[in-house]
């Protein structure tokens, strides 16, 4: 294995490889010193870890988060586009405007994420084929308005948690991080309004998430809410200041990519 050949190969793809590794000069010198002593089998491992540090949050890491977000936005955009076209939203009520507003935002997010991925030289993932009944769990999603709003609430609250869970992966790219945060809070505004729409139809729900309560939707979406009941933040017990309900409501909790992908899996054919 020839270290210089490897770096030279990378240089053809990434002309800045020397700059990146230069900040790791100490590691390079260390590597050169011990290179002769360690077993050859260990070299690939040492190299991998060195490059991983130098490329901590590379363009490919950033674009994988953006493609993850794009998948969720595809889901929401198609959901509201189909819902708005289905005739399920009561004609002549403010709900029509609200659902259309949310639909337009989700479609704008899809378009914006595709543009952003393109500007990073990355390929946007294609739109999956969706089954909004989730294999029959929400069989009447486009024929029963309350089911439609219940699925909407689950999507919005989960979208908020999904963006929150990946923000840290974008911390090295200020522009992309800010855009992700700007989408994140829009999803929270949507969630708040959908919850108010459900409340107006008799659901026992508030604009914010209390404990891990699904707002009466039930076990089908329990995984979307598990973990929201947290009342300790960074070692501070929020129960010292407010009630348990308020303590959990005042902080929304993240979900990992794996948790989110498991939640949306039934909606993808």
């Amino acid at each position, binding site marked *: 294995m020839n270290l210089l050949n490897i770096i030279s190969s990378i240089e053809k793809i990434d002309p800045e490889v020397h700059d990146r590794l230069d900040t790791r000069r100490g590691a390079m010198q260390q590597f050169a010193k011990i290179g002769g002593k360690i077993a050859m089998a260990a070299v690939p491992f040492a190299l991998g870890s060195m490059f991983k540090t130098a490329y901590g949050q590379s363009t490919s890491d950033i674009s994988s988060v953006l493609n993850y977000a794009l998948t969720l936005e595809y889901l929401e955009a198609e959901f509201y586009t189909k819902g708005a076209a289905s005739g399920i939203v009561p004609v002549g009520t403010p709900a029509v405007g609200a659902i259309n507003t949310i639909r337009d935002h989700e479609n704008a997010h899809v378009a914006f994420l595709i543009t952003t991925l393109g500007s990073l030289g990355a390929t946007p993932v294609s739109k999956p084929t969706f089954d909004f009944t989730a294999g029959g769990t929400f069989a009447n999603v486009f024929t029963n308005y309350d089911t439609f709003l219940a699925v909407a609430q689950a999507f919005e609250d989960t979208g908020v948690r999904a963006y929150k869970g990946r923000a*840290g992966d974008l911390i090295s790219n200020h522009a992309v*991080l800010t855009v992700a945060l700007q989408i994140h809070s829009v999803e929270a*505004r949507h969630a708040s309004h959908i919850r108010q729409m459900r409340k107006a139809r008799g659901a026992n729900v508030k604009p914010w998430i209390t404990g891990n309560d699904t707002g009466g939707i039930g076990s089908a979406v329990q995984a979307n809410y598990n973990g929201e009941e947290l009342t300790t933040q960074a070692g501070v017990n929020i129960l010292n200041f407010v009630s348990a309900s308020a303590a959990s409501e005042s902080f929304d909790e993240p979900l990992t990519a794996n948790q989110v992908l498991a939640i949306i899996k039934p909606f993808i054919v």
Partner: protein
Amino acid sequence: MDNKNTLLPANGNNSFPLPGMLGRRRFLSYLGLAATSATVIAACKKDKDGNNTVPPGSIDLGTGDIGILNYAYALEQLEAAFYTQVISSPFSGMTANEQSLLTDIRDHEIAHREFFKAALGTMAIKNLEVDFSSVNFGSRDSVLTTSKAFEDLGVSAYNGAGQLLKDSNYLLLAGKIVSVEARHAALIRDLISNGSFADSTVISMNGLDLASKPADVLTTASVFLKSKLYAGNLPTS
């Protein structure tokens, strides 16, 4: 609560209440000068740590991540004080539903304020003095208009401050709070005019919410504050 314990590393500030003033005194002492304050400002823009000198009577938010957390703490103090007043002197005609929702929001803002105070410990800025003389707490219109301004401001502040944080743990904490502020903003907007939860005054054609720099946010917030905040040592990128 023992606020002498800090849960945050001392990586952006020190526990001296006015680090800028300390620097200025030392600098003057070194020069042996009795300068006018105008001369001081002109001659001594940086203290011994390279920080900008804090104007007399102002509260320095600090530097680095701690500065950004103190900036958030200042906004939460403002919001908590506002909703405490809203609930203690309800506007005329407040419905039971409105009272319940506004009480929840008050409690959320108190939770945020007390969280920052406890987490920052000795690095926390002091309690701020507010000025709500421009608000008519007896008027639903005045209260909700102010509330809307605070909530949209809070959302834009957290969205704009995320990129100024270095530690992803703090970024996550800010993320946990900003979505709750966005839920508040949407609700308050709907109380004023149903369906305005995310209208084009806050959401761009690309479906993006507002993001504002600390200096711009503090200009708006300063109308409601007797205390003067100094943001000159906050990170700008």
